[in-house]
């Protein structure tokens, strides 16, 4: 009986670890499935362009972070956290294996003591840089109060979210360093070596500290993993598919609406029979609106954009409308799209797929005033470090305002009339168009 109890106690940490890993994986999988389902609520869209160029764009923009370093301070700090995150995962792999197999520092004998020490030392160096970068970022947000982090759309949860992420990362890095410093089986690591003298001499206490830090680090990572899909921090995953599916066309080129094209072609076709019965409508086809009123009218790529946004606000800080005090903020457009999409997804979960909550992206989240402030200058698109396109959403919402609601500013309605009647936005006769040559 005693032997049996000993056996149970011996394997207990491993069992607990496996359960924790299982629960973490289950909830993470559920989150990914939910987000995937939500993104697929968007309109179908065939994105063309060579695969090689797509991979190259992803390598350059997401992996190489070429657009981050346009602003050097934030860019370099971000690269430190990014590299730290990626490379420290090798140590996390060891922790995972140790946890499941009941081993301790599994990689040490495999890699040889010297190389192992070098590797962990290198990770510790990265961890220290991550700590520095997180502190700088917290300072920029909360003490220096960088303007773009204090815009109206950042009030409440978005501001807290940003700080939580940085604080969690600080805690995780501290656990990592304490774990190494309190481990008597290893010594002389680059950074934690300096922490060793601070540790208690008592073996039992030391072991307890080591275990708490070890479990704290890995359980913290598990928790963080399941926080990420509910947070702006989800960009660490979405940046990759989103840059892969980047718009490869010239930024000035806006899409032509196929639905409108068909109608206009029919209208202009002299051989079309105006009395012909319309073709039998496909009962399964979704009602296609001209432009977008709600998230389901947007394409899956536009919805993917919204889950990729990490609310850094570079778009908004480069936006000419926002800089001159207008209501428009491209970052808010992306945040609203994601919020509305989450709400629509929640409605489906709670009330089934056909539930209508009577709300929409246009009107309940984004106002006409915001949309009409846009100069379509592409500064937001250019500024985004992960190739999000807020402008295309602004344009699709404008299209709905104009084509479905006839709700354009009065001056623009005259412009439309002029173009239609005189072929120019101003009230000049078409016949006078060539007068400039003889004036």
């Amino acid at each position: 009986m005693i032997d049996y109890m000993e056996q149970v106690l011996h394997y207990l940490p491993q069992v607990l670890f496996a359960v924790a890993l299982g629960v973490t994986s289950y909830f993470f999988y559920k989150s990914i499935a939910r987000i995937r389902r939500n993104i697929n609520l968007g309109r179908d869209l065939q994105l063309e362009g060579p695969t090689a160029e797509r991979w190259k764009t992803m390598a350059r923009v997401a992996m190489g972070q070429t657009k981050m370093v346009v602003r050097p301070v934030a860019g370099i700090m971000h690269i430190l956290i990014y590299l730290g995150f990626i490379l420290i995962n090798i140590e996390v792999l060891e922790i995972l294996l140790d946890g499941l197999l009941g081993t301790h520092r599994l990689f040490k004998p495999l890699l040889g003591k010297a190389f192992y020490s070098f590797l962990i030392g290198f990770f510790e160096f990265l961890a220290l840089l991550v700590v520095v970068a997180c502190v700088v970022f917290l300072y920029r947000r909360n003490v220096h109060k960088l303007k773009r982090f204090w815009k109206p759309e950042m009030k409440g949860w978005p501001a807290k979210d940003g700080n939580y992420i940085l604080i969690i990362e600080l805690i995780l890095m501290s656990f990592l360093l304490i774990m190494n410093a309190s481990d008597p089986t290893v010594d002389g690591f680059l950074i934690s070596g300096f922490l060793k003298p601070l540790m208690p001499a008592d073996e039992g206490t030391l072991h307890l500290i080591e275990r708490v830090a070890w479990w704290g680090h890995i359980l913290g990572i598990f928790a963080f993993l399941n926080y990420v899909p509910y947070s702006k921090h989800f960009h660490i995953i979405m940046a990759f598919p989103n840059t892969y599916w980047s718009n490869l066309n010239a930024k000035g080129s806006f899409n032509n609406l196929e639905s409108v094209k068909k109608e206009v072609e029919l209208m202009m076709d002299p051989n079309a029979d105006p009395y012909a019965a319309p073709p039998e409508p496909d009962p399964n086809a979704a009602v296609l609106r001209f432009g977008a009123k709600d998230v389901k009218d947007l394409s899956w790529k536009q919805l993917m954009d919204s889950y990729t946004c990490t609310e850094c606000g570079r778009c908004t800080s480069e936006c000419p409308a926002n800089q001159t005090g207008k209501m428009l903020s491209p970052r808010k457009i992306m945040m609203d799209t994601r919020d509305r999409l989450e709400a629509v997804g929640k409605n489906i979960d709670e009330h089934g797929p056909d539930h209508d909550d009577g709300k929409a992206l246009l009107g309940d989240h984004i106002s006409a005033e915001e949309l009409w402030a846009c100069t379509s200058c592409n500064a937001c698109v250019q500024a985004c470090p992960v190739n999000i396109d807020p402008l295309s959403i602004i344009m699709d919402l404008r299209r709905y305002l104009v084509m479905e609601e006839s709700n354009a500013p009065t001056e623009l309605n005259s412009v439309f009339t002029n173009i239609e009647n005189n072929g120019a936005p101003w009230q000049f006769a078409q016949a006078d168009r060539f007068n400039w040559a003889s004036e």
Partner: protein
Amino acid sequence: MAETLTVPTMADYMARGEAPEILFWVGCAGSFDDRAKKITKALVKLLQKAEVKFAVLGTEEACTGDPAKRAGNEFLFMMQAMMNVQVLNGYGIEKIVTACPHCFNTLKNEYPELGGSYDVIHHTQLLRDLMKDGKLKVEGGSFKGKRITFHDPCYLGRGNGEYEAPREVLEKLDAELSEMKRCKTRGLCCGAGGAQMFKEAEKGDKEVNIERTEDALEVKPDIIAAGCPFCNTMMTDGVKHFEREDNVQVLDVAELIASAADL
């Protein structure tokens, strides 16, 4: 102004059974706006000096539909585009030059899907090529010692990735080219794009063109160079706002070259 230009139209060429090398798409601003008409004429003179066989559509030209599209009226855009494509294809047009980045962008990027595929270039690109080929020569003398700053039009720069052509052309003037703190990919809009030109700005605390003119005046220029008739208007208004019109001129790249070439 009694100065009459002889500008051939496509119909003229057609009547002679000939075809020009390139169509000059004048655009609505270039045809009707008093300030932009000067840019149109400057470009015509440069084309003639470089002996480029060109033609215009004259009264057969109509708005590309750009302002309608940016304002969300895709129907109107499509109608304009399809009518223009019929005219352009009817004449068998292959190459188009325009002095308006909005026409340039629409013709180049949005017409191909509607059956209108042409080789479309901006006038600063054509001027650069003509200079490279030695067909157009300018003496920079009159601009020596002057400071010029170029304002990037959104639909030429960010929209189509062309930042260098206008600068290469301006370099020939032997003037001092000075960049604004925000230029090229990070250049600030003049405030006219997206159909804003034709409406009151939304409520804010400043006009975009004032913000941009501040950028320009910061480099203490003698001349603000533009490559778009709408930017030209916005920057001119901005300079007037600061009452600096006596010592700061806003001129199109084509006007600067034409003036250097004594045209």
